């Protein structure tokens, strides 16, 4: 029974891992995997001396870092706010609406983002115009492109990611709030002295894991929003690998880039996992 599944993993997951070895070869499709000569670390040399890789690595880290700083607290704030709502119908409606973008592909969402930020018709520029500010072509503007990425990814995931924090909040013993009431605590006081401390362990764990993913870019989002005008600030490791490997057919070099990225990623995740285990006694394993 287990055989088909194991066969699948060996072919489609361990196959490509083995295939990564072409990073150490000069791979020519016509000669095949075995016929292509070994070249050792040549492609890694190119990678680290090349002018192209560092800007891309830098963009990846900056964008991920911004998403972490601004994107991580957003669903926590939403969950805490939702928890304060006493009208169940209102709460449900907000939740239902805010989960929606998570189910929609980045192709559609990118189309939506471009439309909403359009200088000629988008509500955002309409608002700017009303306030007397000149319209901005956000998606094609260098200073604005990263904020667009950060905000659109918060917009897509905020509701969805709040679920886990809401679940943590719902585990808080209601008696704590009742005792606080007796002591005369106000709403804000209860948020900061009960709700947030109670879900703090969950926050810490999720933060550590989010940090572990800092080298992974949101490929589907960026590929759909990236355009020639913002290449300099928006090109990331995955879009770069894709261009080099699939479009320009530099298979070996692109595999070296992939190898480097996946190696770092594995290292970060394992580190994050061991930190989380040491700090809180929880880990993904």
């Amino acid at each position, binding site marked *: 029974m287990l055989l088909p599944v194991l066969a*699948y*993993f060996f072919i489609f997951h361990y196959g490509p891992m083995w295939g990564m070895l072409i990073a150490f070869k000069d791979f020519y499709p016509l000669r095949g995997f075995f016929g292509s000569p070994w070249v050792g670390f040549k492609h890694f040399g190119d990678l680290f001396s090349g002018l192209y890789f560092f800007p891309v690595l830098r963009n990846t880290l900056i964008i991920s870092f911004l998403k972490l700083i601004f994107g991580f607290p957003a669903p926590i704030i939403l969950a805490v706010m939702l928890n304060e709502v006493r009208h169940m119908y*209102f709460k449900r409606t907000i939740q239902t609406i805010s989960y929606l*973008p998570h189910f929609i592909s980045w*192709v559609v969402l990118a189309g939506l983002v471009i439309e909403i930020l359009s200088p000629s018709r988008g509500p955002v520029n309409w608002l700017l115009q009303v306030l007397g500010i000149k319209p901005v072509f956000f998606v094609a503007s260098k200073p604005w492109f990263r904020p667009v990425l950060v905000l659109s990814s918060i917009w897509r995931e905020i509701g969805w990611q709040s679920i886990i924090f809401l679940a943590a909040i719902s585990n808080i013993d209601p008696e704590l709030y009742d005792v606080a009431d007796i002591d005369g605590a106000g709403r804000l006081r209860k948020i900061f002295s009960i709700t947030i401390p109670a879900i703090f362990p969950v926050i810490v764990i999720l933060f550590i894991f989010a940090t572990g993913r800092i080298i992974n870019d949101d*490929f589907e989002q960026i590929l759909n929003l990236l355009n020639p005008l913002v290449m300099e600030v928006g090109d990331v490791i995955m879009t770069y690998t894709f261009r080099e490997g699939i479009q320009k057919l530099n298979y070996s070099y692109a595999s070296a880039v992939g190898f480097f990225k*996946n190696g770092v990623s594995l290292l970060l995740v394992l580190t994050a996992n061991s930190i989380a285990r040491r700090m809180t006694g929880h880990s993904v394993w």
Partner: protein
Amino acid sequence: MARVIGKRPIDILTDVVIYTGLVLVAAATVIPFMQIITISLSPPEVASSFGLHLVPTKITLEGYRNVLRHRLIWRSYANTIFRTAVGTALSVTLLVLGGYPLSKRYLPNRRLWTAIIVFTLYFQGGIVPTFLLVNGIGLRNSLWALILPKAVYAFNLIIVRNFFMQLPEEIEESAKMDGAKDLLILFKIVIPLSMPVIATVTLWSAVYHWNQWFDCMIYIQSQTKFVLQYVLRLILIEGQEEYLADSAAQYVSTDTMKMATLIVATLPIIMTYPFLQKYFVKGVLIGSIKG
């Protein structure tokens, strides 16, 4: 409860901030969709005018008529439905067949197999080696290239396995005493008891397939095999409008047709959304217990 007594000004202010904040979050999602729907229904003079387009002032169905007249849209719709149906069926079958033995303590080398599977969550070959492999085994330009390479996601397999592990062993043991074979137990006892988790992974897989486009972009060359989201990408993102219009475009602006295509491609998700939402949320919670 007793929590409402004696509202202080600061508490009222907190309420105002919270409710306003939440309404803004919802508005940020609702407004874009209102605009898309409006543009998709508007005649050219409205669509190209400046200002807010949140409610249609004049309605024309020309945009939709044009989009639905287009053969490529229908063809890609069929391809998407095919990959979603077959891909999901295959995925769920493999998840159940794989999750069941992995949930049994007496499976030889169980920890080893589990580790081999979980490892793929943390380390992958990357797009180029995967691309070469898929082409190498002859799947290039085949719809199977969209189905096979991602047939099982290790995370889902672990979730299914964990669910099976929670089932009470006694029921299966007594069936075994009566001489039932593993497969019979799986189909007659385990699967019926596991419908919540099976529904969840089915929907995860279906939404994944519906929304996926990148694999089509790299593996498929023939237009007749394009999937919906990829056609949408060609039209919306790469601006290849020739995929849209024949010649009827004079009655309707290309933007209107773009937005109509967007709606047509997203409608199935929106229509099944209440149902999707329920099971997805359940899945997040199942996953987080031992996630």
